[in-house]
C-alpha cells in the first residue's frame, strides 16, 4: 500500500493538467464550475489521504532504494496544514473566481490555466514535503515558485506581471545560491558516506562528523534560498508586492502554505546544524535573522495604506518569529514553533479571504475606501478584526500560546533580545490598531454603496476558520500535542 502513496499524492494534479492540455479546445474543460469541483475534490481527497496515513502508517516510511522520498511526522503535519488551506481555498475560489471571470478581470480562456496551476501547486507543495533528498526538495521548491508566479500573473495587469517577475527573479536567484550550498554539502560527505548522500535522515545521522566551517558555509548558502522563499529579510522585497497583487485566494495560499515550505527546510537544516561543531554560531545567526525579519515589518506596517500589503508585512514578521524560534532550538520552543505554523496559516487565510471580500465590495484594497463596513460586509469585517487579533496573539487565539512560549524561550537565551522583540511586537500591535481604527471608522452615509452579494462559498471558509481558531486556542487536542512532540524528537531534540 505504502509504495503507491507518492503516486496517490500526485496523480490528481497530473491528471488534470494532462486533461487540460489534451482538451484545450473543449468548452467543457474551460467551465469554471467543473474545474472548481475537481479542485475541491482533489483537496479533500488529499486531506483524507493524509489523515488516513497519519492513523495507519508505521512512520517513518521510506520509498525507493535511494530513499528519495519519505513520510515522517513532520512532513505529514506540514501536508496536513497545506491540505486544510487548500480545501478552504478551493471552496472560496468557487465564488471568488467566478466573480473575477464575470467582471472580466480573469479572461475566460485562462480558467483552465488558473485551475491547472492551482492543482499543480498543491501537488508540487506536497511533493516538496515528501522529498527526503535536499536536491529533490530544492527542485520542488523551485517548481512552487513557477506555479505560484503563474497564479499571480493570472490577472493580466502590468503590475501583476512586474510583481510576478520580481518574485521569480528574487526567489530563483536566491535558490541558485542554495544549490551551491547543496553541492558543498554533497562534497562534504562524499568521503563520509560511500557515494555521498543528501537525504535528510542520513544527514541527521552523520551530522556530528561533518566538518564545521564548511558546513557553516553550506548552511548559510542554503538559508539564502530557503529564506528568500519564506520572505525573510533581506530577501523579503518580493513578498508584499506579490501578495497584494495576486488574487486574494492566491495570496492566502502564498501566505498560508508557500512561506511554510522554506521554513520547513530551515527547520530540517537546523536539526542537522545543532549536531555539528558550529551549531552554536548558526543558532545565533538564525536568531539574529529572525529578529531582523521582525524589525523591518515593525517599521513598515504603520505607513501602509493597502490592506493586503499590510497583511503581507505581518507575514514577514511571523516568518521572522518562526526562524527565531527555530534558532533557539530547544525542544519546548520547537514544539510551539510547529503549533505557531498552524495558527499562523489559518489566521492569514482568514485575513486574506476577508480582504478579498472587501476588494469585491469596494473595488480597492485601500483602507480609505472602506466605508460602512459593518453594515455592508459584517462577516468580512469581523474576519479582518478577529484575524488581526489572532495574528497579534491575543489570548484565546492559538498564536497567543505559541508566541508566549517562543518569547519565554527567548528570555532564557537573552533578555536583551527579548526586550527588543517585545518592543517591536508592541510597535506592530499599535500599527494594527492604527490601521483597523482608520479602516472601520469611515462612515459616509451619503455614499450609498450597494452591498456586494457575497457568495456562500466565500463565507463558509471564513466561518469555519473562526471555529477552528477559537477551538485551538481553548483546547489543544491530546493527539496533536503527542504528534508535535513526536516531530521534535524525530528531529533529534530530546524533550
Amino acid at each position: 500500500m505504502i509504495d503507491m502513496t507518492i503516486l496517490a499524492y500526485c496523480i490528481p494534479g497530473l491528471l488534470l493538467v494532462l486533461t487540460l492540455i489534451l482538451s484545450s479546445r473543449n468548452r467543457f474543460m474551460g467551465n469554471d464550475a467543473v474545474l472548481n469541483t475537481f479542485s475541491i475534490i482533489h483537496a479533500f481527497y488529499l486531506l483524507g489521504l493524509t489523515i488516513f496515513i497519519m492513523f495507519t502508517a508505521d512512520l517513518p516510511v521510506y520509498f525507493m532504494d535511494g530513499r528519495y522520498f519519505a513520510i515522517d511526522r513532520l512532513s505529514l503535519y506540514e501536508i496536513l496544514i497545506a491540505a486544510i488551506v487548500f480545501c478552504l481555498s478551493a471552496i472560496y475560489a468557487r465564488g471568488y473566481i467566478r466573480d473575477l471571470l464575470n467582471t472580466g478581470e480573469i479572461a475566460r480562456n485562462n480558467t483552465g490555466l488558473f485551475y491547472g496551476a492551482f492543482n499543480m501547486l498543491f501537488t508540487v507543495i506536497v511533493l516538496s514535503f515528501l522529498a527526503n533528498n535536499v536536491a529533490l526538495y530544492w527542485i520542488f521548491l523551485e517548481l512552487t515558485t513557477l506555479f505560484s508566479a503563474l497564479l499571480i500573473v493570472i490577472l493580466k495587469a502590468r503590475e501583476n506581471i512586474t510583481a510576478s517577475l520580481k518574485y521569480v527573479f528574487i526567489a530563483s536567484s536566491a535558490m541558485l545560491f542554495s544549490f551551491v550550498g547543496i553541492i558543498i554539502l554533497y562534497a562534504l560527505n562524499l568521503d563520509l558516506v560511500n557515494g555521498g548522500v543528501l537525504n535528510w535522515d542520513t544527514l541527521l545521522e552523520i551530522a556530528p562528523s561533518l566538518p564545521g566551517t564548511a558546513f557553516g558555509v553550506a548552511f548559510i548558502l542554503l538559508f539564502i534560498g530557503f529564506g528568500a522563499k519564506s520572505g525573510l529579510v533581506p530577501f523579503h522585497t518580493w513578498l508584499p508586492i506579490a501578495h497584494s497583487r495576486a488574487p486574494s485566494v492566491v495570496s492566502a495560499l502564498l501566505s498560508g502554505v508557500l512561506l511554510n515550505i522554506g521554513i520547513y527546510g530551515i527547520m530540517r537544516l537546523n536539526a542537522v546544524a545543532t549536531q555539528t561543531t558550529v551549531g552554536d554560531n548558526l543558532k545565533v545567526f538564525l536568531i539574529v535573522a529572525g529578529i531582523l525579519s521582525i524589525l523591518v515589518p515593525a517599521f513598515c506596517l504603520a505607513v501602509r495604506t493597502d490592506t493586503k500589503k499590510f497583511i503581507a508585512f505581518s507575514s514577514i514578521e511571523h516568518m521572522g518569529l518562526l526562524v527565531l524560534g527555530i534558532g533557539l532550538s530547544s525542544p519546548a520552543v520547537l514544539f510551539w514553533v510547529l503549533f505557531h505554523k498552524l495558527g499562523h496559516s489559518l489566521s492569514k487565510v482568514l485575513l486574506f479571504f476577508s480582504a478579498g471580500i472587501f476588494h469585491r465590495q469596494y473595488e480597492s484594497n485601500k483602507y480609505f475606501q472602506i466605508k460602512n463596513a459593518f453594515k455592508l460586509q459584517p462577516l468580512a469585517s469581523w474576519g479582518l478584526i478577529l484575524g488581526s487579533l489572532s495574528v497579534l496573539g491575543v489570548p484565546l487565539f492559538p498564536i497567543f500560546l505559541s508566541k508566549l512560549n517562543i518569547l519565554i524561550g527567548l528570555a532564557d537565551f537573552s533578555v536583551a533580545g527579548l526586550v527588543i522583540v517585545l518592543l517591536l511586537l508592541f510597535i506592530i500591535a499599535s500599527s494594527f490598531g492604527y490601521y483597523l481604527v482608520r479602516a472601520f471608522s469611515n462612515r459616509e452615509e451619503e455614499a450609498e454603496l450597494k452591498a456586494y452579494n457575497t457568495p456562500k462559498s466565500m463565507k463558509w471558509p471564513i466561518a469555519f476558520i473562526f471555529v477552528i481558531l477559537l477551538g485551538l486556542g481553548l483546547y489543544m487536542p491530546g493527539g496533536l500535542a503527542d504528534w508535535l512532540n513526536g516531530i521534535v524528537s524525530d528531529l533529534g531534540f530530546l524533550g
Partner: protein
Amino acid sequence: MIDTIIFSDIIHGLFVLILGTAALIITQRSLSSLFNIYAVQSFILAVMAIVLFIENGTLNLLFIALLTLAVKTIFIPLFLHRVLKRMPVKRDLQFSFLSPASSIIISTILLFVVYLFFTNIAGEVFNDSLILLGGVIGISLILMGMMVIFSRKRVITKTIGYLTMENGVLLFSLFMAEMPFIIEFLIVIDLLMILVLSAVLAFGIDSSLEEFHKKLNRLGIWVED
C-alpha cells in the same frame, strides 16, 4: 588520458574564455549578440565537461556535456532568438545603478574577494588548486550573473543574467562534486520552465507596443499605487 600539464593548461584556458564571455554578457547591449554569447559560454562549459570526462572517465560528465550542448547551446538560444523576432525591441541600452565599465571593475573585485574567501575560510575542503580555481570562477560567474539581473532594465536581459548564474552553478558542480545525473537533468527542466515563463512575461513588459499596454491597463481596478 591526457598529460596532466596539458590538461591543466586546457582547463585554465577555458576558465579565461568563460570569464571573457561573462564580461561580454555584462557589457553587451545588443540582445541577439547577448544570446549568442550565452550560447558560446554554454559551449565552453560543455567542452570543459568533456575534457574532465576524458581525464576522469566518469560517464556522468559526458551526459552533462551532451545535455548542456543540446539544451543550453542550441535550444535556449534558438528559443530566445524566436522570442526576440516577435518583440519590437532589439537592444537593451539602459543600465541602472552601474555603468558597463564600473560593472567590469566591480566584477574583477568580486573575483578577488571570492578567491580570498575560498583560500582562507573554506580552504579545508578545497585542497586541489584546480578545484579551488573552478570553485572561485563558478561563484564569480554566479555573482556576475546576479549583477546583470539587477543592473539591466529589460526583463529578457535579466533572464540572460539568471541563465549565466545557472552556468556558474554548473561550473561549480563540475569541479566540486558532480551531482547524480537525474538531479542535473531535473534542474535543466526547471531552468527551461522558468525561462519560458519569464520570456512570456518579458514579452508583456518589454515590448513597447502601445496596443499591448492599453490592453493591460484596461483592467484598471487592480492597478493602484
